[in-house]
């Protein structure tokens, strides 16, 4: 019999060997010799931390109790690995592209870098995995106790558990937190667990070979003994076979320690392809001898001995101390490698998602504080490791190490499987939202606690037996093993089915009804379409950060050397010689990802946003989501439109200025004109009145002639003054319009008569009377005044040999216009612009008009709600009077 002391000596030697291997692996990494450390073989072997002490000891116990059912725990992962193309390929790619450090980091990163989500996942993971760690401690102490049995009292089990926990914590602290690696890979740890994987496989195979060929005497007799044993027939709870296969597949993907070795420690995606057949092979070899060992154990060992320890007790009973010691080392390896990686994974989560955010927010200075944050991160990692192993130890002490190993393992599996909907949903469905993920996780977690975790302590411990029988608060449909009153389901199947189903349902329903933030939508696109574009398009308003701030922060997390290399490379990429690179958007994103690899996505995001200002993210991201190029195009279109508008305004201003200048010239001209106009009649009035007064003996005929001249001149003055007054009244808006209804034809007739009256050489006027049959409701006197003015103008200024005026009425929908086209010389362009202005007179015409007629016309038309315009023809001028649409009534 091996003494406990010998065994402890062997264990210590083995542990020293592991320390040495890990140490040399770290040394080799530091020297840059990483190729052999990162071979597909090492990757595959590191995956074997799936096989914990639960596999090593528990599988045989499981088989002894339930026959082939144990194998479901290995069928699920085998299917996942063989089907790597479906889920693992994307998971690994996403995890690497996003530099995810843990399951919590991946989920939080997918759902908008939400730290709340990361905290929830972390707490769930700690609660789910702690019993599993306790299980490992229990298996090591149990196996030690087996050796100690003959010398009773030689082993203090809790003391042994404490020292095992202490040793594991020491190893994890030493090799798990040696440096804050840029990519969070731990070569020392990985190589150590790869070695342990070989040890446990060899140990289990050795025991198996011994049992089949040494005890049973070959394969055929072994088969006979199997069929003759108490578990010799196929007895299977069908729902368990199905549910446990699915559960193990889910747990394989969602276990924090599996994520650590499968995604975080993955060096090359091609290793996954090799592991896709190599890891199922490993699992198959691990399971191959489980049934024979169980059968032989049931056969040879005394009734009541613990089937979980057959792997140890059979060789011991057969006097094979060396084999038993190897077997012990195998179990020890299984336990330690699991505890080390699980603790590493959990401590990363706890440190990144709970300790660091709390620490950062407790510092008023935020991310810009000087000093090395790396020490804080490493310290918080170490504290987390001690905390988690401590929790495992405490759980072990209080649970008393009683329950069958398999039960604890399964409970833990159901707990971590709750991550799967959020994880897989997040990478295949863009519509998944943060609230959906949170709802799903909490729903699944609650059901797991109520249906699986709490009942595992037995009735009357946490949940009273009345809760088991009558339900929570006496509600019959909330019984831990019969939710919704459906009884008779196996408790594990019950917990798996309800927790996963309701988890997925809550995840989907809440996702459907909530709306994701821009960052979430962006990350969703990045995750789901990871194979289309691995780049990130998340917008930091980079201009707000200074390179110095970023440098200070990066140094504190990555270390001075690492940070300087990073910045130097970026500077040379930007084409800058020496100095710091410009904080471009791309650079800040790159930096965030580098930081995320050390402190997790949410923390890195928070730190960068402290420097850059998080507020800009939403708008910027929306722009990115809505396609950046479209935005730029729109912006340049806006600019173009604005510049057009400006040049248009400038043109209008120039025109107005020219008009003003012209008007000013005309006004001056008019003033001299008006004084001339007024002086000419005044002069003749004065002269002729003097003649009348001073001439003696003037004949009656003469007197009448002179008086007529005086009267005519006075009339001319009056007319001029009337016009001026009229215009002034119109312009000031003091005119009152008298609306009446009448025919357009009659109005034109009257106007023509008035305009032609007293004329020596009347104008030829052509009209189309049919068109004029329109009833108008307007101020006919004023409109007539416009017509008279236009006709008079044509008569006065038309210089054709046979002056002619064509008056036509045209109708375009509700709009009515009357045009007056003469055949005189067209008005020059220069004058056209001002003909409607006051005092404007075209060319050097005789002084009979004051230049007010057209100005009055325009004023009147404006008052009537219409307009009068001048159209230039090749021969002649056309004035068009546009009548307001409502003034034209239905045609007669």
């Amino acid at each position, binding site marked *: 019999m091996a003494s406990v002391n010998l065994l402890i000596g062997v264990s210590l030697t083995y542990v020293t060997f592991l320390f040495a291997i890990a140490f040399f692996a770290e040394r080799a990494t530091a020297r840059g010799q990483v190729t052999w450390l990162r071979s597909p073989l090492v990757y595959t072997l590191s995956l074997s931390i799936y096989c914990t002490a639960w596999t090593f000891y528990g599988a045989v116990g499981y088989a002894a109790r339930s*026959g*082939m059912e144990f*194998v479901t725990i290995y*069928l699920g992962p*085998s*299917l*996942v690995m*063989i*089907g790597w*193309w*479906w889920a693992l390929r994307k998971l690994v790619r996403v995890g690497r592209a996003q530099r995810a450090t843990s399951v919590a980091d991946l989920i939080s990163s997918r759902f908008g870098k939400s730290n709340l989500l990361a905290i929830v996942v972390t707490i769930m993971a700690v609660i789910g995995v702690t019993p599993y760690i306790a299980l490992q401690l229990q298996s090591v102490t149990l196996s030690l106790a087996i050796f100690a049995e003959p010398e009773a009292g030689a082993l203090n089990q809790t003391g042994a558990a404490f020292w095992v926990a202490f040793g594991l914590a020491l190893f994890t602290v030493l090799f798990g937190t040696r440096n804050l690696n840029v990519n969070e890979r731990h070569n020392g740890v990985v190589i150590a667990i790869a070695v342990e994987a070989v040890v446990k496989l060899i140990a289990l195979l050795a025991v198996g070979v011994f049992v089949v060929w040494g005890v049973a005497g070959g394969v055929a007799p072994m*088969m*006979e003994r*199997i*069929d003759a*044993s108490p*578990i*010799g*027939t*196929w*007895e*299977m*709870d*069908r729902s368990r*076979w*199905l549910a446990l*296969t699915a559960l193990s597949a889910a747990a394989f993907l969602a276990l924090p320690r599996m994520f650590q070795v499968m995604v975080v420690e993955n060096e090359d995606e091609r290793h996954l*392809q*090799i592991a*896709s*057949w190599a890891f*199922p*092979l490993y699992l*198959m070899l691990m*399971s*191959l001898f489980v*049934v024979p060992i169980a059968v032989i154990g049931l056969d040879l060992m005394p009734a009541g001995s613990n089937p979980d320890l057959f792997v140890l007790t059979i060789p011991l009973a057969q006097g094979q101390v060396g084999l038993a010691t190897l077997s012990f080392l195998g179990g020890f390896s299984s336990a330690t490698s699991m505890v080390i990686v699980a603790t590493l994974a959990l401590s990363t989560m706890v440190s990144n998602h709970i300790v660091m955010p709390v620490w950062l927010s407790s510092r008023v200075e935020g991310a810009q504080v000087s000093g090395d944050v790396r020490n804080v991160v490493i310290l918080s990692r170490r504290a987390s490791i001690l905390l988690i192993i401590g929790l495992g130890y405490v759980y072990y002490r209080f649970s008393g190490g009683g329950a069958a190993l398999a039960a604890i393992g399964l409970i833990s599996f159901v707990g971590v499987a709750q991550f799967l909907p959020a994880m897989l949903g997040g990478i295949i469905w863009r519509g998944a939202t943060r609230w959906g993920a949170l709802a799903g996780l909490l729903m699944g977690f609650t059901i797991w606690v109520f249906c699986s975790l709490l009942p595992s302590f037995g009735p009357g411990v946490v949940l009273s037996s009345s809760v088991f029988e009558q339900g929570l608060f006496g509600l019959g449909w909330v019984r831990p093993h019969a939710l919704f009153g459906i009884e008779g389901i196996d408790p594990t199947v019950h917990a798996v089915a309800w927790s996963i189903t309701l988890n997925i349902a809550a995840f989907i329903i809440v996702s459907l009804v909530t709306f994701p933030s821009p960052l979430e939508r962006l990350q969703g696109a990045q995750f789901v379409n990871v*194979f*289309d574009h691995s780049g990130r398009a998340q917008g930091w308003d980079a201009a707000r950060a200074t390179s110095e701030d970023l440098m200070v922060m990066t140094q504190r997390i990555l270390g001075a050397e690492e940070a300087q290399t990073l910045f130097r490379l970026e500077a040379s990429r930007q084409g800058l010689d020496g100095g710091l690179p410009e904080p471009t958007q791309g650079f800040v994103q790159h930096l965030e990802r580098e930081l995320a690899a050390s402190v997790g996505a949410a923390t890195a995001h928070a730190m960068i946003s402290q420097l850059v200002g998080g507020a800009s993210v939403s708008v910027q991201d929306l722009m990115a989501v809505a396609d950046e190029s479209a935005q730029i195009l729109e912006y340049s279109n806006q600019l173009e439109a604005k510049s057009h508008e400006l040049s248009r305004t400038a043109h209008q201003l120039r025109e107005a200025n020219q008009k003003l200048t012209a008007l000013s010239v005309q006004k001056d001209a008019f003033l001299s004109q008006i004084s001339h106009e007024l002086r000419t009649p005044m002069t003749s009035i004065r002269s002729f009145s003097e003649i009348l007064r001073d001439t003696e003996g003037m004949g009656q005929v003469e007197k009448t002639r002179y008086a007529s001249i005086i009267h005519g001149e006075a009339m001319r003055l009056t007319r001029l003054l009337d016009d001026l007054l009229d215009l002034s009244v119109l312009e000031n808006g003091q005119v009152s319009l008298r609306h009446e209804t009448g025919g357009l034809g009659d109005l034109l007739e009257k106007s023509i008569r008035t305009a032609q009256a007293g004329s020596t050489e009347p104008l030829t006027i052509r009209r189309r009377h049919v068109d004029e049959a329109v009833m108008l409701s307007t101020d006919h006197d004023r409109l007539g005044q416009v017509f008279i003015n236009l006709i008079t103008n044509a008569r006065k200024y038309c210089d054709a040999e046979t002056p002619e005026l064509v008056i036509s009425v045209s109708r375009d929908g509700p709009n009515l216009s009357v045009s007056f086209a003469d055949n005189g010389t067209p008005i020059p362009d220069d004058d056209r612009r001002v003909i409607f202005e006051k005092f404007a007179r075209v060319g050097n015409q005789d002084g009979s008009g004051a230049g007010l007629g057209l100005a009055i016309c325009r004023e009147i038309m404006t008052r009537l709600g219409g307009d009068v315009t001048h159209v230039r023809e090749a021969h002649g001028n056309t004035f068009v009077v546009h009548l307001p649409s409502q003034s034209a009534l239905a045609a007669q």
Partner: protein
Amino acid sequence: MSTQGATPVFLERRSYRRRRMMDALRLLPILGVFLWMLPLFWPTPADGPTAPEAVPLSTAATYVFVVWLALIASAFSLWSLLRARPEMDEDASQELR
């Protein structure tokens, strides 16, 4: 990234073969699920006295392990065949259209 517009209707024989092997690789886990869930149809003593005789454990274990081995062998041979025929476009082999 696929150049969908430029993809010819018929692939050359080599890449056609390769793609069908990828299809096989993708379908392998489905075959695995089917074969491993087949034991659900086996009779068990719990089905009552009229049920056919239960399958002996040795047969059941052999069946499960033979399926396992066959799946591993298929995955291995597909992997090595695919590795021996690298497609010209590395990206396309990742995409496996």
